[in-house]
């Protein structure tokens, strides 16, 4: 499972890095006379409504998607891990404050708050990154807080405290490392989530703006050509589903590998 997911993600990274070398066409170059042409030997995925090569744009879109995933997951995981460990370690008023903010942000289902934020701030890639990071840290904070609450009672943490280690050292050297496997799994699954969220916002016209080739924007452009040129919709959609599937497979595999409980249950005898 992990290998399949890893292979798909690796393929996407290679495609994003080598995009211009793999495709013979510029993602912005237009052949207006051949607009909406279907897939052919020259244009593997066909041409879009402005006569641009869809294969080249799918490769360029991989860059945007991976960049969004990396930026959102990096900011969210660092901020979430920091706030979650502070809340869990110190408890009291600090924990109460952070936990209430988490509760309020979790009261907005999924993408709703991101849609609201981008609606008022204006549609752009920067605002998408900001909105997704603002809601993304919550999941990490909740996860890490729980892990820290458990870890602070461990004997080696008590021993470090008895030996006079200061709080930042205890947090950085002893407590946060115990939460890292769970954060890694969450980050891997979060990459898929961030990519999907960006594509959804761009599809709604609230994310990356044309002519930048984002997969969500490409799907949005294809909506008006469902009847006469379904290839505009099919290829960017396959790209999104495949990459998100890859991250979900990788995350699931990592969870199984890093969680001893899952390993034990997986090796138990089948019932019945």
């Amino acid at each position: 499972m992990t290998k399949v997911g890893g292979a798909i993600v690796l393929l996407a990274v290679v495609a994003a890095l080598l995009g211009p070398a793999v495709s013979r066409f510029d993602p912005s170059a237009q052949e207006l006379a051949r607009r909406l042409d279907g897939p052919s030997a020259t244009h593997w995925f066909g041409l879009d409504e402005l006569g641009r090569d869809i294969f080249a744009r799918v490769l360029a879109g991989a860059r945007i998607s991976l960049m969004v995933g990396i930026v959102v997951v990096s900011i969210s995981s660092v901020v979430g891990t920091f706030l979650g460990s502070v809340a869990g370690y110190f408890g009291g008023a600090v924990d109460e404050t952070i936990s209430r903010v988490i509760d309020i942000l979790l009261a907005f289902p999924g993408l709703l708050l991101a849609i609201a934020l981008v609606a008022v701030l204006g549609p752009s890639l920067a605002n998408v990154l900001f909105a997704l990071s603002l809601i993304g840290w919550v999941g990490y904070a909740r996860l890490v807080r729980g892990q820290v609450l458990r870890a602070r009672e461990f004997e080696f943490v008590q021993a470090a405290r008895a030996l006079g280690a200061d709080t930042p050292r205890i947090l950085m050297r002893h407590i946060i490392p115990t939460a890292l496997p769970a954060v890694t799994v969450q980050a891997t699954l979060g990459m898929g989530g961030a990519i999907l969220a960006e594509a959804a916002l761009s599809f709604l016209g609230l994310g990356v703006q044309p002519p930048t080739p984002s997969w969500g924007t490409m799907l949005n452009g294809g909506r008006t050509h469902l009847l006469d040129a379904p290839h505009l919709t099919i290829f960017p959609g396959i790209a999104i589903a495949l990459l998100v599937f890859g991250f979900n497979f990788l995350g699931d595999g990592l969870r199984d590998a890093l969680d001893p409980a899952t390993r034990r249950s997986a090796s138990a005898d089948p019932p019945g």
Partner: protein
Amino acid sequence: MLRFLARRVALTIPVLLGVATLVFSLIHLIPGDPAQAMLGESASPQDVAELRTRLGLDKPLIQQYGLFLRGAVRGDLGRSLRTNQPVTGAILERMPATIELAAAAMAVAVAFAIPLGITAAVWRGTVVDHGATALALLGISIPNFWLGPLLAIIFSIELGWLPVSGRGTWAHLVLPAVSLGAALSAILARMTRATLLEELREQYVTAARARGASRARAVIRHAFRNSLIPVITLIGLQFGAVLTGAVITETIFAWPGIGRLLIQSIGFRDYPLVQGCILLIAVTYVGMNLATDLLYGFVDPRIRYD
């Protein structure tokens, strides 16, 4: 039970206040003058000033906040800038369509997920299980804004079986419901598999088998019934995801619900209506979570003492 109920409801009040505060703040996050942003750059200073007064943006912030909260409690969220219709009325008008779609999507999800989850758990570790797991992960990975158009291409354009958009007959409901329910179905199938596997390890299942119960009976009548509580909880908790998904699905299939109203209002910069839609969806979600928690506490008394 009453104490649990009162404590759980009391915990919801600060969350609702926080939600209302965040929704109120939205209009103040607009870069520059919100009234100017709503009317556009070409609007005259008189029109901008008039709108500012109409929305109460000329009052001190704390007074604006107080008026917003008072209005929210009374169900008065102002008027639409475009149609001048009361925001609450406009939202309530669209609500039945969204509820209909969400209910149908959840029904589709349950109908697919339960058999898939049971099959994967019973034949765990086999090709059937791996296939079901891959299918569930695929369901989570396929975005509904792609699945929707894809289904429309196949079933409306190619086969001509179902209408491509709008609301009216049950046929109109099929494609939006399947496209919205697919991801939920995948999540539910995984949950059903996991909880059923836990139950199948319990001694009462072995005891039932020892008493001569068939394998199917032991799974369905004994283990599956007990595995249902977390699955039902998940259905309740996933209601929010369905509401957010409905924003996209309604846009794709021109379904006249709150989600489509929200996206249209964003397009028209009708911010009172945007605030109203966001507030209503969030409050509904909080309400559903509260109801799920209370139901869970009612079904499983151990929860009340946590």
